[in-house]
């Protein structure tokens, strides 16, 4: 029994039309069907946060959605963060500068979680950052560098916003 559906979604601004088996998760769709392997899968049952992406601007675990549920949605993944010329997003730069990653497996999920968080809370306290990241597991860093990167990124992004206005 192979049941498929035609779906259409925008990923990082690019329109995709595809026919996909209804039981495929959104994470597998991104990785296997669209070749966007930046979204990582750690646990595949909603515990580790590695697969976090944005669905219509809101963070979601892509292992806990079916691809068919994203029909018509706008998806953002880690591949869309850097500029077209390769300039890192301030969050990515801050992770680089603050040793916010070691093996990098958890990083895409950390980044996408923080993108949404910093949008709603541009000037967070350390406690708020730790609370926001409590659903993302990292086996390497001990979190110190990640929290420092998040706070540093928040400051850079605030400075950028002031510069733009």
């Amino acid at each position: 029994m192979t049941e498929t559906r035609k779906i259409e979604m925008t990923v990082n601004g690019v329109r995709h039309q595809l026919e996909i088996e209804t039981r495929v998760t959104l994470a597998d769709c991104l990785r296997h069907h669209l070749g966007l392997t930046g979204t990582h899968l750690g646990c595949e049952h909603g515990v580790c946060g590695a697969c976090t992406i944005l669905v219509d601007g809101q963070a979601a675990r892509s292992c806990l959605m079916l691809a068919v549920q994203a029909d018509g949605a706008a998806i953002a993944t880690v591949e869309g963060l850097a500029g077209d010329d390769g300039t890192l997003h301030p969050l990515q730069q801050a992770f680089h500068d603050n040793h916010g990653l070691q093996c990098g497996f958890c990083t895409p999920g950390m980044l996408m979680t923080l993108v949404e968080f910093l949008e709603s809370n541009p000037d967070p306290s350390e406690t708020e950052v730790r609370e926001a990241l409590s659903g993302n597991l990292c086996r390497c860093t001990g979190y110190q560098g990640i929290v420092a990167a998040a706070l540093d990124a928040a400051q850079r992004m605030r400075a950028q916003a002031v510069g733009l206005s």
Partner: protein
Amino acid sequence: MKPPPFHYHDPRSLDQALALLASRDNAKLLAGGQSLMPMLNMRFAQPDDIIDLNRIEELSFVRHTEGGRIEIGAMTRQRELADAAVIHDRCPLMCEALRHVGHRATRNRGTIGGSLCHLDPAAELPVVAMALDATVHVQSRRGARTLAMAEFPAFYMTPAIEPDEIVTKISFEPWPAGHGAAFVEFARRHGDFAVVAVAVLLELGGDGAIHRASVVLGGVGPGPLRCAAVEAAVTGSRGGSAFQEAAATCGEIDAMEDVHASSAYRRHLAEVLTHRALDTAFTRAGGERAS
């Protein structure tokens, strides 16, 4: 590929969903997916049909009825609830509890109907619904009916609804302005299910003494546990030592034991957290401690 094969349906109306559900033997309703999707990925659940409720707009709302009740559609996301002005203004207990429900990425998808029907023994929203004496509204092609939240849990992780029924909304009468609410829990990590959680609502009379109390524990048994003994012990009191004695009655409860905690530890937590929640709710109600 993780989930087992199934037929996928995404009805646009409640009627369509009810018709589908009535015509299938082994169907599962997919709400926010934060519990069912893991069970599908791990193949603990192997339904023949998945009926996805996410495209049914009529099941998503938060509103005040003319009779003064608050109604919440089953597919209202936890994130939407936390942001809703009515909940913020009239039901601070739910707002405080929502901060403990998973993480932002799971609250963005997870729904109140999903939380209630999954009925994890340590989930926060069933505890809140019980503390508010909420009514659960269910519907099938055979008709609509209501259940008191107190009779909603049938047994471990199983609500008292029939296979062809869908929970459509919950409703409750908000406590009057000026009441005190507190939701306190202990979890190993922020956002995890609670080891023990407690919800407290207190209303003071004109004389400053408590004249109505609701105290419900989560995480101690298969479903939320109303603590009638604590409620009785605090009613008429003005805090202070009465709270200590009231909370001590939690030492009598029959708490469950699992990999996370022994029953003795759960009883201890129940007592300590209940005491804290009573103190906080009393202060928030504007209460002044008896000396």
